[in-house]
């Protein structure tokens, strides 16, 4: 089990995202205007490409590629002190949005994670708090 910091509310932009996490959905937004760059992430009340407030929530298939990562060896924050070396990554989801997350389920994060690796989301239950945290696990390559 894990004890990561929980999102905190009220915070109106991100509330629908975290309600999605409780249902096992990785949500992102799309702009309904005829817009050059319609994928919106992190959650907002407007489209940063065109300024429109006409956005819809979508559910990602949850598969993507590691854009970059680091393995944290030292963090003084509660919830991470006892975790040992853990990864932080930017993952590019196939729908075109980039999110910060962690790649889990590898024996040695320094050796076993690499840029370009295919990963799939899973929702990690926490010791305390009602929101599971979306993290990524490498997709087994045949």
């Amino acid at each position, binding site marked *: 089990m894990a004890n990561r910091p929980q999102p905190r509310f009220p915070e109106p932009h991100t509330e629908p995202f975290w309600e999605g996490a409780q249902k096992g959905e990785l949500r992102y937004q799309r702009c309904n205007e005829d817009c050059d760059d319609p994928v919106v992430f992190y959650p907002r009340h407007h489209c940063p490409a065109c300024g429109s407030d006409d956005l819809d929530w979508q559910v990602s298939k949850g598969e993507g590629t590691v854009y970059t990562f680091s393995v944290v060896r030292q963090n003084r*924050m509660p*919830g991470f002190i006892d975790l040992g070396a853990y990864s932080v990554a930017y993952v*590019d989801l196939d729908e075109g949005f980039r999110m910060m997350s962690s790649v889990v389920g590898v024996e040695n994060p320094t050796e076993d994670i690499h840029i370009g690796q295919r990963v799939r989301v899973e929702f990690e239950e926490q010791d305390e708090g009602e929101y599971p945290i979306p993290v990524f696990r490498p997709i087994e390559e045949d």
Partner: protein
Amino acid sequence: MAQERQAAIVGIHEYPLRVAPGVSAMNIKVDSIRAALDDAGLKWSDIDAIYDAQDGEAGGGLQLAAYLGVRPTVLDTTQVGGSSYEFQAAHAMRDIAAGKCNVAVLSYGSTSASNRVAIGTGGRGGPATWATNMESPYGATLIANYAMVKQRHMFEYGTTDEQFAGISVATRHHAMRNPEAVKAMTDLQFVGVNEITPQDVLDSRVVADPLHLLECCMISDGGGALIIASAEVARGCKKPPVWLIGGGEATKYRENGGDITTSAGAQSGPIAFGEAGVTPDEIDIAMIYDSFTITVAVCLEDLGFCPKGEVGAYVEGGRLAFDSGEGPALNTDGGGLSSNHPGMRGIFLLLEGARQLRGESNSQVPDASLAVAHGNGGLLGGTHTGGTVILAKD
């Protein structure tokens, strides 16, 4: 090309101690302002503009004027992290040119070391926002954020750890010639206060892959002040003026599909160089925010010292040392890596740039005539700012 020479750095002071228990940040600011005014030959009552990054116990701007006891006609509280002072210097240059003020004060004070502030490895507090609610569950320390940029740079361009280490080697070379930096490293209990090799950097422990300890700046106390004055005032000051001839500012942030190896400097740099009418290959002194080796590497590229992705080959062979004969000389005070980093290093970039152009550096480059000060504030791999200022000898 003739540049506009309407505003100049006329007074400078760097607070000498990096561990100053029992001293307040406001004391550091005020002591530094007094010393910088004295350096310029100006009086307390000459101050008519305050630029403040909202540091110090009294809070920013409004409270600083009250604490100092001055009535400025310009009050600028730009706070954009470590590059605040490059933004403020550019604003002072603009405000003086517009006739809004004549004697501008920029100051900084911090007791990060004495207060044991874990800047790189602690959490980031504050209220929940649209961005923190998406990132705080993952424990991305500040160092990990910069490390992700280095990881991608190595992947995309083949830059090696040894090449990055050359940046640490150059700044330590300069720090060993700066008595205040030597005392800083001693007081902060560095392991080995001496010149270092690339291998020393690679042998230091990894804090967040792929960043090693000797690629990370220190956490110190400290601060300083600088006085920027109009040409008319500058001509009556004690020391030769160091002219501000170009300024640029920009911001950058995480974007879907964005290139993490390019910083805000790619926007602020060309604006500043364009205004100054000079090019990177004319620069003698590169004062570039060395929070980490990767910050310098990315910013050297973005400012145009070399093409994107080629910084590894560019820094190889030690060209960044003040005595390499090649130049530009990087962070000749020892930088954040080996001299001074209380949290917002931007002011020290301007202070050492001014020392070089006055001929007062401990690692003086003969006939140095042009310097660039480039600050990077915030998170290089996330939301950050870039502020670029070009300085010229009188």
